[in-house]
């Protein structure tokens, strides 16, 4: 209590000085001045500097980030958005920190798999080096460990989906959690397992942690082979009904686990985090649904422009020229694929500003109106 009291006047002084500087910088934000001097000095914006780069497998890179002081930390299993400039354009992607939420150095550790078509992941895999400054969002997401911690835990991951559940494992070990933890990880081969040495060391050092490695493309070595099925579950966690399961991985693994849990009637014990890239629908497809998330309205995609579809759904988004020149109707597309009728270009990036009057949805699209 006394700490709070003594620090208040100082904070008040800082605040008023900050507002004076902000008034002087108006109408621009102070960070728009500061970033020109050095990108890591900001008053409002959260950024992060790459301080460590490690390429542990052929197609993954592990980045250690030092966030600016605005960083509020994260809970194991949450994700952050990372922004990076590639050929003049800032691209943003979601990644889950892999380090323990309890780590005290304030760093964020991301392990990124370079997908063949992944612009950002390819760039970071090839180009990331210490000193690179990235945009960072505060952590978000509900895929977290409950408090108090469950007595028994099954952590299941596949490929690069390892990061949020590894963060959970590291957090639990840090907390000296006494319950049993089974870590089941799927990879093509042993060479594709990120963090292999660390996983083995954690399992060796902690009697309550058992590591199960499952390989889908390798027949020798490891503990299990092939894809997830009930036999895998029976083999590694026969007590599954008495545990909480946390799952993150590619769509095939997610489907497989969900199906088994549904058949067993224990879906409520399964917690998942999806990391599937937006699918690019086939040419000429006009199906799907348009969700106007801020209004809570959903309508079938009629194939018309998003402005017309929004109006047909009874909404009144702002618009001007209705021909793509005035930008009055620019709106954030939160997810899905759209096609620009003027250029024919398709866009699958999430959280992108699009012009409603010249964009048509291709499959499911969600808009923030």
């Amino acid at each position, binding site marked *: 209590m006394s700490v709070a009291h003594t620090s208040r006047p100082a904070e008040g002084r800082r605040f008023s000085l900050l507002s004076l500087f902000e*008034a002087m910088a108006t*109408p*621009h934000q102070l960070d728009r001045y500061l*970033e*020109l001097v050095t990108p890591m000095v900001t008053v409002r914006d959260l950024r992060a500097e790459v301080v460590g780069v490690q390429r542990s497998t052929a197609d993954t890179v592990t980045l250690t980030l030092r966030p600016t002081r605005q960083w509020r930390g994260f809970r194991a299993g949450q994700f952050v958005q990372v922004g990076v400039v590639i050929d003049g354009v800032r691209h943003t992607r979601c990644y889950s920190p892999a380090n323990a939420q309890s780590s005290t150095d304030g760093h964020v550790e991301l392990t990124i798999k370079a997908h063949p078509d992944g612009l950002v992941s390819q760039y970071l895999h090839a180009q990331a080096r210490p000193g690179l400054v990235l945009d960072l969002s505060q952590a978000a997401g509900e895929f977290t460990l409950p408090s108090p911690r469950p007595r028994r835990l099954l952590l299941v991951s596949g490929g690069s989906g390892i990061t949020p559940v590894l963060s959970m494992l590291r957090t639990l070990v840090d907390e000296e959690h006494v319950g049993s933890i089974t870590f089941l990880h799927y990879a093509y081969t042993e060479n594709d397992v990120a963090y292999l040495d660390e996983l083995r060391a954690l399992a060796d050092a902690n009697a309550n942690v058992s590591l199960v490695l499952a390989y889908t493309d390798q027949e020798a070595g490891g503990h299990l082979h092939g894809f997830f099925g009930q036999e895998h579950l029976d083999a590694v966690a026969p007590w599954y009904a008495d545990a909480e399961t946390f799952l993150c991985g590619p769509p095939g693994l997610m489907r497989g686990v969900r199906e088994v849990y549904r058949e067993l009637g224990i879906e409520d014990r399964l917690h998942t985090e999806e990391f599937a890239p937006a699918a690019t629908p086939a040419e000429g497809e006009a199906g799907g649904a348009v969700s106007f998330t801020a209004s809570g309205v959903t309508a079938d995609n009629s194939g018309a422009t998003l402005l017309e579809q929004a109006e047909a759904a009874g909404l009144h988004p702002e618009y001007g020229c209705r021909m793509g*020149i005035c930008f009055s109707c620019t709106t954030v597309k939160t997810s899905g694929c759209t096609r620009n009728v003027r250029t024919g270009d398709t866009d699958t990036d999430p959280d992108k500003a699009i012009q409603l009057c010249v964009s048509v949805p291709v499959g499911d699209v969600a808009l923030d109106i």
Partner: protein
Amino acid sequence: MFGLSLSFLPFVGGADGPRNAAPVVLSHDQVEEIGRELDALRDRTVADLGAEDREYIYKIIKAQRGFEVAGRGLMYLGFFPPAWIAGVGALGVSKILDNMEIGHNVMHGQYDWMREPGLNSRVFEWDTVCPADQWKHSHNYMHHTYTNILGRDRDIGYGILRIDEAQKWNPYYLGNPVYAFFLMMLFEWGVMMHDLEAENVIQGKRKWRDVKPLLKGWWRKAGRQVLKDYVIFPALTGPLFVPTLLGNVTANLIRNVWAYSIIFCGHFPTGVQSFTEDETAEETRGEWYVRQMLGSANIEGSPLFHIMSGNLSHQIEHHLFPDLPAHRYPEMAPLVKALCEKHGLPYNTGGFFKQIGSVWAKIFKFALPPGLVSSDTPPGVIVERQKTAA
């Protein structure tokens, strides 16, 4: 009953009056070819956007912020006249760059493709009293969609001036040069009040209900601008309050005169055509392009001049491609000009003094009743339109 019929709908310049030469006639096919070629030019430029454009705009932003900081700093030496003059100059340059090459262009969405939160058309604000959202309505939408269409484009005379022969004269317009002078000096306030449509409010055509949200925006935006330039920065120089205040007023004045002059050169020099609503109903993309070219005028000058005018010296290219980064207009201009020459279309350009001179000549001329002045409407361009008969 319904069918296609070929009809002539002329795009005529000004009102009826004697013509010096025969008008240019553009066939429907020519118009569509112009549309295709301009679309192709647009596509080539869009495909080429990248890191260089990002570096360019950040270079301009750095220069602008540098001039601003230098200008504010020099005010602390405001007791020494050369320092005061240098400070005012730096601040004036900063405000011009902020409004023209940065603000105007960013708010057109020219840099939205960079997905940089600080350069996004939806959230950008500029160093002037007009709130960005109101300006985007009056400018990006009203002016750029309905360029030079009488009765639709409120930039024709801004509801204050008679700047086109087709605007009906009345005795109020005798004050035309005086109104223009005050508009020039107080340009940022004029821009702010543009969306109000004051003459419609006075005539009772516009309701208080429509106006109220505008006033709130003014209070918020202009309040902060005034506080910054006329209270906070002068106060920060302590005993130099008055010189700093006068310096900031002068810098705003410099920006006003410059912005007004560049903008008036964009649409009002001799030779620019205006259009009627009937002529432009249900335009094709090609026809829209042609109207934008005929309704705009360029200013010739050095690269520095183009930067200081926000590349609005390439008003023709800007009106064809309002959402492409403006620093690309100089490289596009020769191609647009060649396209005009190929089809015999006028490409209205000239030095700054020629263009601004003809603007002021118009302001004086159109102050007088039509009977007292000669009509020297340039040859218009007639566009053959294929129109669906109802």
